[in-house]
């Protein structure tokens, strides 16, 4: 496809990520095939040569992340992408990126695990993405889109954030978001925040040499460096928290979900409208930094939270840490490729509000809104 802004394209989330990266000025992509992110690497293989960029299929995800590391060290906007097993292989490199303060955008199109798992949607890589994943005290900035459009928007932002903070940024999607086709409109002027990279390796002609490293063998130096890193992370926490609130005013129960699960939660809210049930949603858009403050604020009013994830319960720990014992936090999760339905979520909500089963709800059938995007018809 020819890149043209201001026009709607029907794209998979994976293709939207690739195209947005190109529009954001990324000219170096390294990857290794793995389902469910293949549309991304395939799209890059077609588009990069068209725009004079580099597409290289690496010999492994280990090589891919280090090729990206090299491109980043050389001062370019670089991207790599993978899923589950491949992202696990990249963890050492991601730690090195953080330790060397190199900007890089990494897309994880999550699939079911552990091990080889399967290729269906999952959110079980939350801990890996948000808590570090590799060794040492570091954070990725983690963005969680919930549609192909938002993937495109957040990929632009990911490059800006990576450059501004000299830090790896991970886009945490899943098989559903990556492979589903949706209309996408690319924002007009994405390349707003390209920074001058004086630290980059370009050859030392006419200036003092640059060294890219994460090694601090002299006693005390590494701790000083870590303190500086942590200061940077505090600044990110101050400046970059993003979230969406739906229907939270006066809500009795607040769902907390990101990505695909957040969309299903929105559907649950739509289905409950008119029934008298007051359900709200807080959708973190940045998983790190995590929207702690908004949760604390909502905890003062709501009766309970219910975290919905395609995992055994990972983000729920951060919700609990944010609200502590101010408000009960419940969880509903599906694992191993299971995707929760809006009906399951509503049942869970009823169960929370009236555990004895005294509350019955006639759940109306969902109006068919296929054109609007995600529609789960598998109602048990």
């Amino acid at each position, binding site marked *: 496809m020819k890149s043209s802004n201001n026009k709607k394209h029907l794209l998979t989330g994976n293709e939207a990520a690739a195209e947005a990266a190109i529009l954001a000025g990324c000219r170096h992509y390294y990857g290794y095939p793995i389902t469910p992110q293949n549309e991304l690497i395939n799209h890059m293989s077609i588009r990069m040569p068209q725009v004079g960029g*580099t597409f290289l299929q690496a010999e492994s995800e280990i090589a891919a992340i280090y090729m990206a590391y*090299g491109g980043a060290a050389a001062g370019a906007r670089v991207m790599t992408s993978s899923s589950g097993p491949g992202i696990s292989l990249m963890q050492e490199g991601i730690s090195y990126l953080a330790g060397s303060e190199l900007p890089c955008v990494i897309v994880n199109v999550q699939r079911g695990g552990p091990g080889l798992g399967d290729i269906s949607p999952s959110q079980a890589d939350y801990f890996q993405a948000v808590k570090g994943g590799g060794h040492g005290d570091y954070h990725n900035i983690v963005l969680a889109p919930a549609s192909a459009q938002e993937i495109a928007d957040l990929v632009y932002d990911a490059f800006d954030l990576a450059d501004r903070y000299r830090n790896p940024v991970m886009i945490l999607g899943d098989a559903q978001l990556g492979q589903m086709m949706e209309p996408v409109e690319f924002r007009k002027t994405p390349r707003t925040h390209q920074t001058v990279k004086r630290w980059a390796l370009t050859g030392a002609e006419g200036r003092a040499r640059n060294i890219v490293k994460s090694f601090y063998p002299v006693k005390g130096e590494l701790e000083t460096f870590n303190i500086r890193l942590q200061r940077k992370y505090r600044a990110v926490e101050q400046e970059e928290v993003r979230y969406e609130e739906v229907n939270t005013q006066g809500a009795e129960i607040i769902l907390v979900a990101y990505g695909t699960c957040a969309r299903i939660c929105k559907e649950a809210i739509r289905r409950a409208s008119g029934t008298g049930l007051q359900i709200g949603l807080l959708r973190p858009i940045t998983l790190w930094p995590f929207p702690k403050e908004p949760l604390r604020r909502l905890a003062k009013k709501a009766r309970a939270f219910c975290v919905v994830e395609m995992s055994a319960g990972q983000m729920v720990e951060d919700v609990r840490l944010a609200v502590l014992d101010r408000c009960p936090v419940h969880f509903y999760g599906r694992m191993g490729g299971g995707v929760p339905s809006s009906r399951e979520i509503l049942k869970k909500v009823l169960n929370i509000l009236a555990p004895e089963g005294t509350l019955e709800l006639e759940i109306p059938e969902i109006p068919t809104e296929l054109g609007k995007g995600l529609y789960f018809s598998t109602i048990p």
Partner: protein
Amino acid sequence: MQALYSAPETLIRTPSHYCPGCGHGIAHRLLAEIIDELGIRGKTIGLAPVGCSVLAYNYLDIDMCEAAHGRPPAIATGIKRVHPDNIVFTYQGDGDLAAIGMAEIVHAASRAENITVIFINNAIYGMTNGQLAPTTLLNQRTTTTPEGRDPLTHGYPIRICELLATLEGASFLARTSLSSPKDVSQTKEALKKGFKTQIEKKGFSLIEVLSPCPVYWRMSPVESLKFIEEKMTQTFPLGVFKDWEKTVSAPGGQATKV
């Protein structure tokens, strides 16, 4: 008075952290001399991974990048694709290149990646206190082969030049040694040829340098030079294995004497 000999500009004057008799210091100096002679200091980017030479950037006054264990060829690829007109080299040990980084070096060579690789073969893991390397000789004692390398347990030494010579993408492959003044000057010639290969955009070049590690070979510096000449070169014959200029190509691994 005319200066006939001086330290290369690219070499930073600072106390060395290498052990007495170590080969790394000699190799660094040769590199610095070549960078000066070719006039490429301002556009050279070097990569040093973990290993005894992880601090190579303390000695070479050029842009440098640290690398994770085994990954220099991948990182160098990323740098070179951004700056195709810069000169990019990696400086790797045998553990780095021939064990954990085997996939990266083979694939960089197969892609004819236009980079220069300096491969310091000291048949040992120096930095981590002298363990078995893929290039450790049969019967050689290391901290993890206290009875000597037994091929039934630990396999046979890997000959990198011979292995890479089977790849069309490799343009210049040579093995030299640091065991005598003559060998040192041949090493310099080979390194220079490696850089020339890159400057002329002829593709992948690798120079394997047999280098002493007296400390973990448990020898005196002089004995370790003898060990290279008498023992190491038996397993790792010196020579040119591939040369784009002379179309020396030895897929069977037969070296042509330099």
